[in-house]
């Protein structure tokens, strides 16, 4: 990590420490400066994800925040990615904020909030079209995927 990205992340961490995270978002681990995991749940009675918790992993490179971090939902024995038309079963997410809409003024918590509201606004539990095909051929780093963003993407 370069001095700049480390410093920025230290600041974000200190911020989380002093101000906390928004409701439904919890920092589960930050085992290194490079990789953080947040738990995300959708609040309220309306949501189709009531009672579910998802783990969102972020990997930060040395050009963060100029470059977007690599963000995926964990898919393991403990956590499953949400059933959502923009979330593949391997945890990859098709969201413009993680691609061409990323801005270096954003931060880790902002990504969590966006993911949370992407889930909150969803009415139908389903995988994206072509999920199986994508998952079979997907690179492990979703940033290497050429995403096509729908209009309704958050």
């Amino acid at each position, binding site marked *: 990590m370069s001095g700049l990205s480390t*410093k920025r992340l230290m600041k974000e961490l200190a911020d989380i420490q002093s101000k906390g995270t928004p409701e439904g978002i919890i920092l589960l681990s930050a085992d290194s400066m490079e990789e953080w995991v947040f738990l995300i749940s959708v609040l309220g009675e309306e949501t189709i994800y009531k009672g579910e918790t998802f783990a969102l992993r972020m990997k930060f490179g040395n050009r963060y925040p100029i470059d977007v971090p690599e963000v995926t939902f964990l898919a393991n024995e403990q956590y499953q990615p949400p059933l959502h038309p923009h979330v593949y079963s391997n945890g990859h997410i098709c969201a413009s904020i993680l691609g061409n809409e990323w801005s270096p003024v954003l931060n880790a918590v902002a990504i969590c909030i966006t993911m949370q509201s992407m889930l909150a606004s969803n009415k139908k539990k389903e995988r994206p079209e072509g999920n199986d095909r994508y998952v079979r051929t997907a690179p492990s780093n979703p940033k290497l995927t050429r995403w096509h963003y729908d209009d309704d993407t958050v």
Partner: protein
Amino acid sequence: MDMSNHPLLSSMDEPPPFPPSHPHLRRLDRSVVCQICKEPFQAPVSIGCGHSFCSSCIRSSLDVMKKCPSCNEPALEGQIRRNRALEEITDSWEESRPIIYELAQPPPTKKRRASIQESNSKPSSSSGTKRLKPNSSREGSGSRSQSPIKSRRSDDGDHNSLNGNGEMEDEEDDEVQELTENDEAPCPICQATLPISSIPLHIEKGCPPPKTKTNGNGVGGRKGNQKADWKKVFSGQGLGGKSKDKEVEMKRITKPNYSLATPADLRSILSEYSLPTTGDKPTLIARVQEWIILFNSNLDTSHRSSLSALRAKLSDSENSKKRDKEKGKDEMVNQLGSKDGLQKYAKEKKGEFERLRKEIIERDRKRREQEEGKGRGRDNAIEVE
């Protein structure tokens, strides 16, 4: 829970926030912060839409996307204008902040004198390293309300202690009390030889080269040619013919067309600024790009860094990128840390991070338990702390 006197956190430059009873002061604090790096502006510039950022922040961002990071309006590098007023405001706010911070405290303490003295000394613009003055006064503000030792440190904070003007030895005992060794060790990033206790701050300031003995007992030859090249750069020998800063034209560098430029073109740009010319084309491009950002943004401020300080930064970022590819930073520091002090530094930094992390996770765990206790998905906010 008192982290305010930890050397790494204080060098992290995090002044205590104003109390909530002063929202306007909090707002003022925020308004001198760049939204990209979240630090007070360094060499602030504005772009077409009117938003302002540090020159190097927006230059890096525009290299990646041609729009304003704040409002998404299309933006080009050519729109960048130095924002002198904002720089003046940022500087004077940081200078006054300790005083105003003191005044904003509910019970006025008798320590006020110290802070007034502190703010009396004028910032010295002679040194190359940027923003030392504001940093040190902020640091002062962080430590004032504590022990007498700390207020002494605030007073010392005004001497540009770590700008590499050769007076470091006297001051870092005050600067970083916890690390008392006077041993010297190579900086893990730029390899410059420094007293161990001053290394953390040296790194935070972007590796300003110490005046002399750059290649003293540094870790030799580990990186082959490139390392040797950087060493030459820092020892003032330069690589090409003209190595004196004076001879370099202080004029914005125009970006070459990277797809058309030959390695020879790139090397000639690099040698013009006495930079290493080793590496393949992608390496050369990355070095030229980074240098142009550093060099051009240095023209957007009245706190100009010396060319050697810029070179140190370039070397720093190049090393950290390489390191990123290879392995984690801690490992690197450990590898290089042939001396106890460096290891201690690495451990401390790790420890600090570890502690922050544990605190947050512990707090979150409690919160989760509470939430679960009440049944999931309730929307009443749980305030922690």
